[in-house]
């Protein structure tokens, strides 16, 4: 027998299984323990305006997913509006439109955003072209004066940006240059736009960024904050708009870049919008599954979480069967336990999941003991094999019914779950046990029965051990590793543990 073939196959299975597993844990951050929860927020933009019966077109600039702030889910809520989403120049745009709305209109955009303190991949690229602002006359002079002064007081890009931002943010009462440039329209967005213009004059490619700084906000209503991005040699550097200090963009949800408004409405008046944020309890697993769908759609398409929920639940149980089977394999081929039927204990263990362990063992023992008694009685009638099996099956089901009713009467609710035992398996167990009983004596029959129960208990313990079940249901690819070990054990030719005792007399003296 060529063992190398087996080793190659096993290595292959292990590397594929572990490879997918590592990709999912390291890249997609699948949680290794079931308790891990993720930091998620629900961001809601509410837009309200009055319509007068004219065609309405409302545009909202919506954020795009990033590695550090993936959007796990988003909803667009509106009544009677048609919705299209477009993406142009790396800007996502949601457009609601309606022919003849009247009265107050409300539109919602809701995004489920996860905060993962991981860095975004550095986007390289060429330096963007500088768009020199077209300023005329007095404005131009004022801008040049502000820029000169800021240059005097700064040493590098960071300090230059800080100087400019702070001068526009807190102008001295006598600062006419600033007053001239801002034209008394002093919104935060305007101030950031001026800073960007001045930076362009100083030959620094810059642009404004508009979004919400999630880290600084608790729940409730969120302020739009306006930041500045400046191209520094090979990448964009980010500065907070108010202070001009370097900003951390990892928890900054970007709605749009450059000029423009968050919301544009044609055909409506009295536009207002609010942004609110709310912390959401999101299991680590569902967050990871959504991330998988976002970043590796191919992997997701072939994963458990792409199935309908009901089917998923079936597989959550089915995926446990290999664990049980593996326990049985160890018990039989490495320890040397005798059980009734190869995988009967696995099915009993599955039933234990519903009945709970102690009640399960008691119910199983009662059922088998009663069934055996009846089986011994039937033996005296000298029935043929198949009719006898059918008779025992009928009796087993009647016994299950009686046990349920009696337990219910006595108020022992766990007795009701007896119906979950696989009755055909129990019937076969009773039949096999009675044959062993007759041929090899009660001792061997009870021994094998107890052996089966112990194996079932161990299989149950393994199948209900949370960390293990979580690993298998989250990473079904680990079954490949289990398969590899199983294949290797298939060529295990060492002694079984119980054989050591059996052949002890042959071992000779210890030296």
């Amino acid at each position, binding site marked *: 027998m060529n063992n190398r073939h087996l080793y190659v196959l096993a290595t292959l299975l292990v590397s594929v299984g572990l490879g997918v597993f590592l990709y999912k844990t390291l890249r997609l951050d699948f949680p290794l323990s079931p308790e891990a929860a993720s930091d998620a927020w629900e961001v809601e933009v509410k837009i309200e305006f009055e319509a007068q019966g004219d065609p309405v077109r409302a545009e909202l600039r919506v954020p795009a997913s990033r590695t550090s702030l993936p959007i796990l889910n988003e909803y667009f809520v509106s009544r009677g509006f048609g919705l299209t989403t477009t993406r142009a120049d790396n800007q996502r745009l949601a457009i609601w439109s309606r022919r003849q709305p009247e009265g107050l209109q409300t539109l919602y955009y809701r995004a489920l955003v996860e905060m993962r303190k991981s860095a975004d991949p550095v986007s390289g690229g060429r330096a963007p072209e500088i768009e020199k602002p077209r300023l005329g006359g007095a404005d131009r002079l004022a801008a040049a004066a502000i820029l000169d002064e800021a240059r005097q007081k700064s040493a590098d890009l960071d300090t230059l940006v800080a100087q400019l931002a702070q001068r526009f943010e807190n102008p001295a009462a006598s600062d006419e240059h600033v007053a001239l440039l801002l034209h008394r329209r002093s919104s935060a967005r305007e101030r950031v736009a001026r800073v960007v213009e001045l930076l362009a004059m100083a030959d620094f490619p810059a642009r404004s960024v508009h979004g919400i700084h999630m880290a600084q906000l608790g729940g409730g209503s969120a302020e739009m904050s306006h930041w500045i991005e400046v191209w520094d040699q090979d990448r964009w550097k980010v500065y907070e708009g108010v202070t001009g200090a370097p900003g951390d963009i990892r928890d900054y949800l970007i709605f749009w870049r450059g000029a423009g408004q968050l919301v544009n409405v044609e055909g409506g008046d009295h536009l207002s919008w609010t942004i609110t944020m709310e912390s959401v309890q999101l299991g680590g697993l569902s967050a990871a599954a959504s991330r998988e769908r976002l970043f590796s759609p191919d992997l997701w398409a072939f994963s458990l979480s792409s199935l309908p929920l009901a089917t998923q639940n079936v597989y959550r149980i089915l995926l446990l069967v290999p664990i049980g089977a593996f326990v049985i394999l160890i018990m039989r081929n490495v320890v040397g336990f005798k059980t009734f039927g190869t995988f009967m204990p696995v099915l009993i263990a599955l039933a234990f999941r519903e009945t709970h362990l102690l009640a399960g063992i008691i119910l199983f023992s009662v059922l088998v003991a009663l069934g055996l008694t009846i089986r011994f009685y039937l033996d005296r009638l000298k029935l043929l094999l198949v009719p006898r099996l059918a008779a025992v099956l009928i009796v087993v089901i009647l016994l299950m019914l009686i046990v349920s009713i009696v337990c219910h009467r006595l108020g022992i609710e766990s007795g009701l779950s007896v119906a979950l035992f696989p009755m055909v398996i129990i019937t076969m167990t009773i039949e096999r046990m009675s044959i062993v009983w007759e041929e090899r004596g009660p001792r061997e029959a009870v021994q094998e029965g107890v052996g089966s129960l112990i194996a079932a208990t161990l299989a149950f313990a393994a199948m209900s051990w949370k960390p293990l079940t979580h690993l298998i249901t989250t990473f079904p690819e680990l079954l490949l590793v289990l398969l590899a070990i199983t294949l290797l054990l298939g060529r295990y030719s060492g002694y079984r543990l119980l054989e050591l005792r059996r052949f002890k*007399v042959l071992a000779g003296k210890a030296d």
Partner: protein
Amino acid sequence: MLGLARRLRTAGVLGINQRNAEFIAAWNPRHRYPLVDDKLLTKQLAVQAGIAVPELYGVIEIEHQIRELGTLLAQHGEFVIKPAHGSGGVGILVITGRIRKLFRKASGDFITQEELDHHISNTLSGLFSLGGAQDKALIEARVHFDPIFESVTYQGVPDVRIIVFRGVPVMAMVRLPTRASDGKANLHQGAIGAGIDLGTGRTLTAVCGNDVVSEHPDTHQPITGVEIPNWQTLLNIAARCHDLTQLGYVGVDLVLDRVRGPLMLELNARPGLNIQIANRCGLLTRLQVVDKEIGQLHTIEDRVGFAMREFAVASA
């Protein structure tokens, strides 16, 4: 624990896993199993090859034939009924005589014709066969065993089990029924197993269950040192059974008939490992020796001679 495993390995003890993986799976081709699993086929094969077997009186294959049982059995006062696909001695019914309408079992109890019919019907429906498949019932001559084992047998028929690897007998034991085994010659049912010196055919130590015994628990006669007559003939038959079935690792069960001499009872493609305990000796070392030397052993006589020479117990 590991130390014990290492000592067993040094003693050349063969474990179940190793037997299954390296000997049964490697040397017994699947398609040859039916030859030994169906005792009727084995018997026909042996008769063709001129190996003596207990005489076959008849075969019951379908329920309907049970009605003709009476006429079939009319001329036989004693007989044995066994399932064609039985294993481990299960379902074998030995009738030693009859009084009027009753049949006397080996144990001395009597059963009626009706109970006999039911037993055969159970056999046909597969109660005693591996996997519960439909089966046949063989009715054959009862063996009158050689008086050599008279003193160390309680009812039943003692039989000789010889393990044959690639045509070379490697280990043998005689299985002696006890009261506990209900006259059956199966070790797990309580029969005694006594190792046999391959060189001389003389019995060595004996085990009952996992205990070493020196005398039969029911008859209190010494078991060790009984010499089996025509030992070389038995080894010859065993070696020929390998050629017959082409099974590389096979257990051959023989009985000694008082009149007809050694008869082949059945073959086993998955012989048990208790024979090692009965002989107080590991199998693995002997199997490896055979594996190495098989190239030089061409004829049956070569192989039997090799076994008698190589696996003889040095007289101390």
